[in-house]
Each structure stands twice: as structure tokens, then as C-alpha cells.
């Protein structure tokens, strides 16, 4: 049973996107059943650092508080995860009561301030790969065909992706030297290409995936699958999309007119 006096936090802060980062420590009075979000809320109420100085409250993002939106993703003790589902009692149990909980912003995205990052590029890539089923038209086209239950079994988990960025954070091939867009958008293409109506735009999505920064940059380190908070089998989806994009690439090469 953990019962420390304080929750000791060490936060990597930055006052604006171009400022140099620095570490700041906080001691928040312990309460049972806290999560990292509620600890940060305590700091917001009383923004005093461990040295007793009054500082700007730590900036971070959160929204759903039930691990479905991805907004509060950060590195907690070096692990990319959501701070809403990071329960402090569990962290103290796992790392020891005297452990300092470190919070850092994700390193593969532009930092706006403190723990707040800009994941816009992930949403831009979802737009590029047309991660939706187009049904809007001038008249009602009625109900579409249903997915077979067997397809549904593997396709549904992909729809749990919340574009949180953990997979990109852990991927060694996503870095400032490469253009790799990461696994999340690739998996979405598998989902929407499996849908009977979505499949009508299959090639448009595949065309995006073979662009610069596309699926070919995957190096099979398979960290993505390990860190995905939604347990999406990203490595299987990458392999399946390798098959689809290879087929597309050869079809284009042999039959295309480009």
C-alpha cells in the first residue's frame, strides 16, 4: 500500500516553441487515486515549484479523460502514454514510492509550450490518405453493404486509433532526418480499404501511401505495436498494407499511363 506524503514530479518545460527546454520539479500533496492529469490540475491550482517559488502553471492538453481522445499524450517516465490513464498509485507501485515521476512532451512533434504539442501533421496525413468512407452526394444512396463479421473482427480495433502519436514517438524511423509519416495513417488505410464503399477509393489511398514518407520507410522495428495504448496490431496492418501497396505499385508500373 503506497502512502507517501508527496507526489514528486519532474517536468520538462519550455515557455514557447523556440525557447530552450528546462526541468522543473514539483511536490504535490499525495491523495489516493490520482492520475497525472489531476496532479497537473493541483499544480494549476497552486503553481509553486519544489523550491517554493511561484511559477507559471504547467501547460498541457487534455480532453476526454478516458483514454479515447489522445490529447493528453506525453512521455511519463520515458514511456509515451496518456496522462489521464496514468494512475499515480500504479506509477508509484511500479517505479517505487520514492520515484520522481518525469513528464516530458513527445519528442517527434513541435512543442507549443511545456507538455503541449502540435499533432496537426497526423491529422493532415489522415486527410491525405482519405481516412473516411465518402457517402456525401446529391441524393440519398441508401444503406451500404455490411462488413462480414470476420472482417469486422480485425477491422474494428483499427477504428479505436485516437491519433495520439505514441506509435510515431517510439518509431526509430520517425525522426528529423526522415519523412516517414508513421504507422497510424497506414493502419487507417487498411480499415477504410476493407469497407465495401470505402474500397471504391482504394487506389487513391494507396497512391498516397507510396508517396515520399510513405509505407516504404517502415523498418520493422515493431515498437509501434508495443506502445500502442489501444493494442492495435500495427505491425500486422503494416504488413497487410505492404501487400496492398506492392500490388498497387506493380499494377501502376505495368498498366498505368503515368
Amino acid at each position, binding site marked *: 500500500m503506497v502512502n507517501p506524503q508527496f507526489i514528486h514530479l519532474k517536468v520538462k518545460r519550455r515557455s514557447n516553441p523556440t525557447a530552450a527546454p528546462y526541468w522543473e520539479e514539483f511536490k504535490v500533496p499525495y491523495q489516493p487515486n490520482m492520475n497525472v492529469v489531476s496532479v497537473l490540475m493541483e499544480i494549476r491550482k497552486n503553481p509553486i515549484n519544489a523550491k517554493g517559488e511561484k511559477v507559471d502553471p504547467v501547460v498541457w492538453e487534455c480532453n476526454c479523460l478516458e483514454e479515447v481522445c489522445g490529447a493528453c499524450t506525453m512521455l511519463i517516465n520515458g514511456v509515451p502514454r496518456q496522462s489521464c490513464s496514468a494512475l499515480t498509485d500504479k506509477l508509484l507501485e511500479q517505479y517505487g514510492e520514492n520515484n520522481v515521476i518525469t513528464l516530458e512532451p513527445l519528442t517527434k512533434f513541435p512543442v507549443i509550450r511545456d507538455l503541449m504539442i502540435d499533432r496537426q501533421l497526423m491529422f493532415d496525413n489522415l486527410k491525405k490518405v482519405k481516412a473516411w468512407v465518402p457517402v456525401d452526394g446529391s441524393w440519398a444512396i441508401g444503406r451500404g453493404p455490411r462488413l462480414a463479421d470476420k472482417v469486422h473482427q480485425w477491422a474494428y480495433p483499427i477504428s479505436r486509433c485516437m491519433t495520439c502519436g505514441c506509435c510515431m514517438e517510439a518509431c*526509430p524511423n520517425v525522426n528529423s*532526418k526522415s519523412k516517414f509519416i508513421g504507422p497510424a495513417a497506414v493502419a487507417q488505410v487498411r480499415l477504410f480499404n476493407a469497407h465495401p464503399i470505402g474500397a471504391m477509393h482504394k487506389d487513391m489511398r494507396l497512391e498516397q501511401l507510396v*508517396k*515520399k*514518407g*510513405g509505407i516504404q520507410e517502415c523498418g520493422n522495428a*515493431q515498437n509501434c505495436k508495443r506502445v500502442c495504448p489501444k493494442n492495435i496490431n500495427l505491425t500486422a496492418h503494416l504488413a497487410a498494407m505492404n501487400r496492398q*501497396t506492392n500490388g498497387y505499385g506493380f499494377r501502376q508500373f505495368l498498366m498505368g499511363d503515368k
Partner: protein
Amino acid sequence: MNREGDRVLSNKNNSNFMIRRLHSLIAVIPVGIFVCVHMLLNSSVFISGNESYLALINFMKTAPFVVILEVVVIAIPIIFHGLYGIYIVYLAKNNALKYTYYRNWAFYLQRITALIVLVFLIWHVWVLRLSTHEPQLVINTLAGLLHNPVTFALYIIGVVASMYHFANGLFTFCITWGICVGDRSQKVFATVAGAFFVLISLFAIAILVKISIMPLA
């Protein structure tokens, strides 16, 4: 300012997709096949030492277009794979100490062995193909290298690194070409590739040891 913002699929048509796929394909066909044949021919030293090996090499030399085949089937694919491979090694920002998963280490080792193999191959080809050429001389040079403990150790490192790069590369090849998709097939094939690495490494080490204990000419 962070440059991550440009990590968005571009509208330009300058993709390296085909080059990456070619890089993966030629590593197995023909380079992987060549490596297997190479090892098989080397293992002729188990039959009657130098003589059977020399007989085989002399026979190979009589094959038509052998130089053209060496250049087109062996040299060009290896050079392309090696040069583009350096770029791929450069592209990764390895994090195996932070994410200590088995596959992440395999990914890191694939890149380390890539560089070892590159250096080893330049040495190997220079010493045993480009600077010497006459079969008897080649085997004498090799036997000399393998009788020296330092160069023997370097050879073991180079050969085992090559076999790791080959075996792990076969596994990732199966993912890159969408052959192993599901968890079970990836698990089974990872085991197969691991066993292949152990067996082919032992086979290669046995050949090197055999040559190192044969009397010098």
C-alpha cells in the same frame, strides 16, 4: 524551430517507393541466393580439402560469361544494396536502449551488421578477388589469413554479421512483401529465421575452422 511539421505526404511525385522495394528484393534475389551458393561451394573443403575446392573453382571459371555474371548478378546488386543501405542506416534514429523490445534490438543490429558487412565485403573482395585471382593463390591467401588469429577473428565477425543480416533480412523481407502478415505467421517465421541464422552461422564457422586447421601449402 522543430522541422517535424513537414512530415506530411507531399503532392510531388518524387517517391522512393520503388527504390526501397528494389533494395529489399535484390537482397534476396540474387544476393541471398548467391550467398547460399557461395557457402555451398566453400563447404567443398570438407570433401578433400584444397583439392576439391580448387577443382570446383577451376570448373566454375570455365563457365561462359562468368565475368559478366559476376558483375550483373553479384557486384551491381550488392553495390546498390550497400550504397542505398548506408542511406537507410543514416535515416534511423535508434532507440534500442529506450525501447528495449526484441524486435527493436533486431532492427538496431540489422543496421550495425550492415556496416560491418560493408567493411568486411570490401576487404574480402579486394583481397580474394580483385588483388589476387589465380585460384591456387586465392586459397593460399585465404589459408594464410585464417591461420593468423587476428584475421581469423575478423573473418568470424564478418561472416557471422553477414549471416545475421541475411537471416533477419529474410524475416523483414517477408513483412515488406506482405507474406507474413498475422501474429502467428510472424512468430513462426521469426523462429525459422532465428534457427536459420544459427545453422548457417555454424556451417560458415565450420568452413573457416576447417580451412584454418588445414596445413598451409
